[in-house]
């Protein structure tokens, strides 16, 4: 490994540790041993949720980008995030928000969304960048509206709906829901593991579908599995955090700039950097205003300029 590469790995690991520590220290009362109980009960789970959410979103974003050879796709632009949010909304308004149905509904919504985008975008001439992003945006809008509708007609607060669509790491765990979250997290991490195991096939398919076929990759199976595994993983996370934008889009790019396009580097790097970035965004969210903000407010403020930069230079 070159020294530049080693330094880059060190930087993203340190960023994650720094953000994690900062996250533990931030909050009412700062940090002291007097409130250790409170820290262990509220802030430590928050850090865990942040690490898993940021990591999973970025890994899935990186895998989607490689699969579709397209720098603009991620779980959010492909509509997966809003599909998951809609699933979660259904669970919440039907009173099953603290049961196993929450993650199940959320990942079902995510899979439904990606299937819809896939069908809409697949026309004559195959999947194109424009069709995919357009289909993703349309599905996103549609599902976001449905989230609002479902929440409001069930007499839920608009605030709750907004947090569902724009994300937050504030998860109040009961003993039961903590267990469910841990299971969701383990499954989502297993999904990321599956994607990482298939890193070389993702490398090959990131050249072109035809090239991948002639180099021995079962393209149809790989495409379906990456969509399925990625959406389920994202759905399992968004069930708890709501839809968080731009982490899955921006982070894999930054990692590619550091390590090159090999998915054996991009995916693990995205996990670490995604986790670090999301924890840091969460610290900003909690300190910028006294009342707090949805996470996507901060991630989008940083992500949109980056998206425009990509649009003007890479597409």
């Amino acid at each position, binding site marked *: 490994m070159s020294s530049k590469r080693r330094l880059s790995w060190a930087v993203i690991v340190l960023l994650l540790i720094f953000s994690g520590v900062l996250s533990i220290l931030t909050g009412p009362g700062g940090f002291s041993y007097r409130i250790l109980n409170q820290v262990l009960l509220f802030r430590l789970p928050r850090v865990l949720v942040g690490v898993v959410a940021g990591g999973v979103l970025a890994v899935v974003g990186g895998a989607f980008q*490689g699969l579709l*050879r*397209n*720098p603009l796709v991620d779980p959010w632009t492909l509509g997966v995030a809003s599909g998951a949010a809609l699933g979660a909304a259904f669970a919440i308004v039907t009173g099953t928000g603290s049961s196993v149905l929450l993650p199940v509904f959320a990942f079902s919504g995510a899979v439904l969304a990606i299937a819809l985008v896939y069908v809409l975008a697949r026309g*004559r001439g195959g999947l194109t960048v424009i069709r995919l992003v357009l289909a993703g945006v349309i599905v996103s809008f549609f599902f976001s509206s449905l989230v609002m509708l479902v929440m409001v007609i069930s007499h839920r607060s608009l605030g709750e709906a907004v947090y569902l669509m724009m994300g937050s790491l504030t998860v109040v765990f009961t003993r039961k829901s903590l267990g469910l979250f841990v299971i969701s997290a383990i499954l989502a991490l297993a999904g990321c593991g599956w994607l990482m*195991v*298939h890193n*070389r*096939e993702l*490398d*090959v398919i*990131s*050249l*072109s579908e*035809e*090239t991948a*076929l*002639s*180099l*021995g*990759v*079962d393209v149809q199976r790989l495409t379906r599995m990456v969509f399925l595994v990625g959406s389920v993983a994202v759905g399992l996370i968004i069930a708890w955090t709501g839809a968080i934008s731009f982490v899955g889009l921006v982070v894999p790019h930054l990692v*590619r700039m550091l390590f*090159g*396009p*090999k998915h054996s580097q991009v995916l693990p790097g995205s996990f670490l950097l995604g986790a670090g970035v999301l924890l840091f965004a969460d610290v900003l969210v909690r300190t910028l205003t006294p009342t707090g903000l949805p996470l996507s407010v901060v991630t989008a403020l940083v992500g949109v300029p980056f998206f425009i930069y990509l649009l003007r230079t890479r597409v």
Partner: protein
Amino acid sequence: MKALTAEGLSFGYGNELIFDGFSLAIESGEFLGIIGPNGSGKSTLLRLLNGTLRPLRGVVNVLGKEINRLSRKEIAQTIALVPQESFFAFEWTVQEVVLMGRNPYLKLLERPRQEDLNKVAETMKLTGVQMLATKSINSISAGEKQRVLLARALAQEPQILLLDEATSHLDLAHQVALLQILKILNEQGKTIVLVSHDLNEAALCSRLLLLAQGKTIACDIPAKVLTPDLIRAAYGLEPVVTKHPCTGKPQVLFPPI
């Protein structure tokens, strides 16, 4: 032994059939050229032969085995395709691109072994791109890219090499160099199928298939295919056909313009 056979292939994009009951047999060790006007189905035929496209009807056999019974990896260990051009969405280095040619030989999670790296170094040397190894694939010229794609195809150690207008971006010297490499590979026993728009390049093949609108106009030695009558039939053009002063092979010249 037949390297590749196609029996009764039918294929079309949308409603229109390009091929309807098309058949072809390619001998092992043969150097077959496929020529024909734009849209005659040359590239489509290559993709039917390596299973990238599936025919509506008919079968393709690879070394006597039905292609549908082979896994993608087994096909990729036998047949390699050099595409006309390639777009790279990410900044791969030349060596990384060539190394992907070893994918058919690697298991899940298996890292490239020394023999894979040796093979890659060997094919890069053969095609003259070893100096570019660490360069970004997007920073090299179109001609260099095409030689990189040939190196990747050769890294697959295929018995059958398909080339889709692989010399179209090359200057004369690089075109001749690539044809020399193909000749050597052919003498070593590899079966080569070359789709080309350059009829004089095609004249170097041992046999020529002349296609027009998915139908075989002629399939024979170059001297019997590159005739004014057949070229007129396929291209609707009155060319001047002469003989190469050194090799005696047919040469097709522009008609007076």
